[in-house]
């Protein structure tokens, strides 16, 4: 035990002296995620809000055929501008988000009380234009509904008769519920910078030590190999915990400044939420440290270990991507999946939803067991004779 502690403390101090690595793993790593996150959220907010509020420039072909419609649109903060001669090509090339074409037959059919055709040229695959398209389509439908109602009234029919079904959408999402997709990225960044925080030490303490030629002497010290590797893993865990704390701290600060409330979200990410996040994420440290040490123990050099670990770092983030795409809801079974359970629980914390203690227990136990298995594998690898290469 004394040997384990000695090794652990030495690795912590040694890594601390490597300033450049430290700067990267404990400063840039934890800062990069939150900053990138804030920028992305800012862009998303700008895009959704601005397109609903701003004056819109709408290219309209043949607006002279429907002056009444044009006036209606202009009354709803739309500037009608000249449209390109070939609207289909212009939208396809991305020169215009959308083009409204009013056919010459519009006036004639409008007066005759028949459906008057207009064409809306859009590219449905262009997500950037989606909000604008919805806005214009909504206005056109509103115009149609208004004219329809006036026609019914002029024929002595109550327009209500045309409305056979009244659909009322009841939105049950809590204000914070909407922030989940955005904040789902947060767990991804936290997990990633946590792994980065321990990566250099995990490599340096195993593959690096062998490459430097200091391993052989170390193995002649009166400390079992199990104690040696456990000491090194403990030091890796320490740096991962520091990195985790810094990242969550920066996120907590950052969330006070990101204008999430403009999206109608409740951003009460308090200090308590931060501690809960750290607590829920912490068991994953064992998995990360075990995984990285196992890889670094069987690779032949620092460079090889670095290449392998960089590739493998994505594996724990895959369940999170999967969860985001499938919009998985937390369930008892999913709590047994390391990294996914952390993601789901942290998402619940962000939503300010009360969390089932049983779920937390399953998440902690299953993740810790998986981590312990990886660490055990690392101790076995460290006992091999081939360790010296």
């Amino acid at each position, binding site marked *: 035990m004394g040997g384990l502690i*000695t090794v652990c403390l030495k690795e912590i101090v040694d890594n601390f002296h490597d300033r450049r690595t430290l700067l990267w793993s404990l400063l840039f790593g934890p800062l990069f995620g939150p900053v990138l996150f804030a920028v992305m959220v800012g862009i998303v907010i700008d895009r959704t809000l601005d397109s609903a509020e701003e004056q819109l420039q709408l290219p309209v072909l043949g607006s002279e055929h429907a002056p009444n419609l044009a006036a209606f649109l202009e009354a709803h903060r739309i500037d009608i501008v000249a449209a390109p001669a070939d609207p289909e090509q212009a939208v396809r090339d991305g020169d215009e988000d959308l083009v409204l074409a009013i056919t010459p037959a519009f006036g004639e059919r409008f007066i005759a009380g028949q459906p008057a055709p207009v064409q809306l040229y859009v590219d449905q695959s262009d997500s950037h234009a989606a909000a604008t398209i919805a806005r214009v389509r909504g206005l056109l439908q509103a115009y149609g509904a208004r004219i329809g109602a006036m026609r019914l009234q002029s024929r002595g029919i109550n327009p209500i008769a045309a409305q056979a079904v009244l659909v009322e959408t009841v939105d049950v999402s809590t204000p914070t519920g909407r922030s989940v997709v955005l904040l789902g990225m947060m767990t991804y960044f936290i997990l990633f910078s946590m792994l980065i925080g321990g990566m250099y030490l995990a490599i340096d303490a195993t593959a690096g030590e062998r490459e*430097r030629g200091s391993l*052989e*002497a170390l*193995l002649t010290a*009166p400390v079992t190999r199990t104690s040696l590797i456990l000491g090194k893993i403990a030091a890796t865990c320490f740096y991962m915990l520091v990195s985790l704390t810094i990242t969550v701290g920066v996120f907590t600060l950052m969330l006070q400044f990101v204008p999430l409330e403009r999206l109608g979200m409740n951003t009460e990410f308090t200090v308590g939420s931060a501690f809960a996040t750290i607590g829920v994420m912490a068991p994953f440290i064992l998995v990360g440290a075990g995984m990285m040490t196992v890889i670094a123990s069987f690779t032949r050099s620092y460079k090889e270990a670095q290449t392998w670990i960089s590739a493998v770092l994505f594996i724990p983030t895959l369940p999170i991507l999967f969860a985001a795409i499938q919009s998985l809801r937390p369930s008892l079974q999913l709590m047994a999946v390391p990294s996914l359970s952390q993601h789901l629980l942290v998402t619940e914390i962000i939503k300010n939803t009360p969390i089932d203690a049983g779920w937390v227990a399953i998440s902690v136990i299953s993740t810790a067991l998986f981590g312990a298995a990886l660490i055990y594998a690392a101790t076995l690898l460290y006992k091999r004779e081939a360790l*010296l290469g």
Partner: protein
Amino acid sequence: MIEVRQLHKRFGKVEAVSDVSFTAPDGSITGLLGPNGAGKSTTLRMLYTVLRPDAGTARIDGLDVVDNALAVRRRIGVLPHATGLYPNLSGRANIRYYGKLHGLRGTELERRVDELIAELGIGDYAGRRAKGYSQGQRTRIALARALVHTPANVILDEPSSGLDVMATRALRDQVRGLRDGGCCVLFSSHVMQEVAALCDNIIIIGNGRVVASGTPDALREESGRDDLEDAFVSLLAQAEAL
């Protein structure tokens, strides 16, 4: 005291050590001499417990290197062929780390580290980070690291490789000092002159076997050559012929 009986070690198809037996007594310097690839390092690695012998036994102060590996490690000081230090730590911190691994603490540890720094004359650079050390400086720090727990047995694997004349001389003085202090010193080398200059006993290894052993004088006599290098070459050649 180091006693080795019929050690064997094989790596896959390569028989690195096929039959090595010798005894290195306390208060004397025993040299393991042989060409590259003769099995010197493998033999030493088995003695300092990082490799397990396939057959045969090795005892250090009566303790078996396999059954009592931790106790053996407390009784040996090892300077492996690779004298890697931790580049971000000072020389002193490197030595101190090994002292702690050997269970030294507090003032006892600091006193021992100071003592070694004075004895080995490394005070000028022991406070600096190991990153910029020369090969000679590295070797001396590594030697101090090996001696921090005042071991009764010292195993050195080609300690003088890469050292200049002055550094080699200083190292030899230190090795003699250890012997005079009653240590059992075992070291390997492929340099005849070095072994001749330093050793009380020589064990010549070729192809994983002990080819000849004895004092320098005895070896000269056995081979019928006056020059020790000629004796070495001729003894090896005889072994090859067999």
